């Protein structure tokens, strides 16, 4: 009985918190079907009084959603795949090989995680200009290829894989490339999926850097594109909310599909750090 009461109480609290969490989204989605004058009207109603879908239809005039979405997906996937690969292979080398300077290198990797964006962004920007990479995806992808966070987590994760399996493969005559690609990589899948999701979300939401280096409208990314609705004298709220609503759907789906692996992955690496 007591258990039942506490179960109900707990569920009620969680649902209330859930409502608080979700309410702004509901408000946003409802507002995306309103005219700007209704969004800002004195008389506020959650549900649109005049239901319009123009915000979604007209959005494409200024905000080529599918284009931005495809760009974001391409860049984010490229960065995610590269980071997953580089993090895993660096993690493998740093955890399973012993060599001079290993700890120094690992300490350095750890230190990189602490450097705020603002320290390096200005020189990085001037460097990208020197390289002639402005307005190209090279500028987005190459500087993001290695991640201190990813390497750190994969090192922790791969360290937990038993050495015996690797030794057995070596005795069978497998070379290290084979061992990494065919044994370590598949075994590290939980760690990989947690890194992948973290990296995916970061790259998906990254704003300042793509905003600085990408100029052409057709190449722009989604997170930056959302600012298109912020004009010189006013903001087109209805269109902004419509665009935001449809931009978060893909990310939510990815999260929903992979949340089990995501959590298992974090559990496998970060906790043991």
């Amino acid at each position, binding site marked *: 009985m007591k*258990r039942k009461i506490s179960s109900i109480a*707990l*569920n009620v609290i*969680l649902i209330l918190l*859930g409502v608080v969490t*979700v309410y*702004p*989204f509901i*408000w946003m989605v409802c507002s995306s079907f309103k005219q700007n004058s209704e969004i*800002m*009207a004195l008389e*506020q109603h959650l549900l649109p009084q005049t239901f319009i879908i123009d915000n979604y239809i007209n959005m494409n005039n200024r905000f080529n959603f599918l284009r931005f979405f495809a760009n974001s997906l391409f860049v984010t996937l490229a960065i995610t795949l590269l980071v997953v690969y580089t993090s895993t292979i*660096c993690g493998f080398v740093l955890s*399973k*090989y012993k*060599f001079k300077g290993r700890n120094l*290198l690992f300490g*350095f*990797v750890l230190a*990189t995680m*602490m*450097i*705020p964006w*603002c*320290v*390096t962004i*200005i*020189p*990085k920007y*001037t*460097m990208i200009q020197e390289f002639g990479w402005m307005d190209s995806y090279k500028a987005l992808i190459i500087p993001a*290829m290695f991640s201190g966070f990813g*390497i750190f987590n994969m090192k922790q994760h791969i360290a937990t894989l038993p*050495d015996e399996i690797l030794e057995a493969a070596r005795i069978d005559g497998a*070379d*290290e*490339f084979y061992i*990494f690609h065919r044994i370590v990589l598949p075994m590290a899948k939980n760690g990989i999926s*947690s890194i992948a999701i973290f990296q995916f979300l970061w790259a998906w*939401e990254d*704003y300042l850097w793509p905003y*600085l280096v990408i100029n052409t409208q057709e190449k722009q990314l989604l*997170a930056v594109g959302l600012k298109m609705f912020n004009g010189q004298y006013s903001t087109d*709220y209805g269109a*902004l*909310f419509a665009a*935001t609503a449809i*931009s*978060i759907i893909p990310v*939510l789906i990815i*999260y*929903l599909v992979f*949340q*089990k692996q995501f*959590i298992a*992955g*974090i*559990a496998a690496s*970060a*906790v043991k750090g």
Partner: protein
Amino acid sequence: MFKKSHPLQSKSEIILRNIVVIAMVIFFTVFLIIPIGIAFAGSFHEWNPLSGTYNFLGLKNYIDVFSSGLFWTSMLNTLIFSVVVIIFRVGLGLGIAYAIYSSLVKYKSFFRAVYYMPVVTPMVAVAFVWKFMYNPQIGTINQIFGLDINWLMNPKTALLAVMIMTIWKDFGYAVVMYMAGLYSLPTDALEAAKVDGANAWQTFRYITLPLLKPMTLFVVITSIISYIQAYVQILIMTEGGPGTTTYLASYIIYDEAFVKYNFGYASALSFVLFVITAVFTWLSFRVSGSQE
């Protein structure tokens, strides 16, 4: 020392190791060490890329930073902001994760997904939505609670309002991290506690919490790093106002670098911020270490 791993280093191991180490070193040198060097040098100069000025100033930028009232206001704000948001993020995250984890709650993945929604929503959009919710006349918050507060323009509530929004956006991250931590707890320790007759609170306080410490440290450190760099919510919600009451350190850097193009001054500020981040990160390691 090589022997611990395995006695013979094969040729392929040396090749793989060299490729990886060299790639890492090149990458971090080009995209981290060199930029840091440039920024460090730049912080001693009057540096404006638009007018092409790059004149040596010595320590002037640093002196300006420390003698600027706005810098100290913003540091205090950043400190308050980070500490409060981190406490709530960790507290809420742990509490909710533990609740979902417990056998009392059924639809676990539903709740996990709901709380994670704000995390995956771009800050730009979230900040606009909340700016509406805080509106003194038409905002949801005043209407629901029957208040009459000009949240974002009252010096007493402006920073608080931004913090509440940030907590709302970010606590789901901590929930998921703690869920992961809880799922990986060794069940034998918890069983043993039960056998010894510990009640739920005792189990949580003396078994679960200490076991979750690495996760807490992880959440706290990633939070310190990201909150010291927070600026988007300020840019959209208050622009630092009213007056200068909600200036955060990174917002000044953004403003100086990409609005006023004072790259030199902005670099000096960045380095000061970097040192402070490092100190706080080190402190959190120390604090967590000293308890053991």
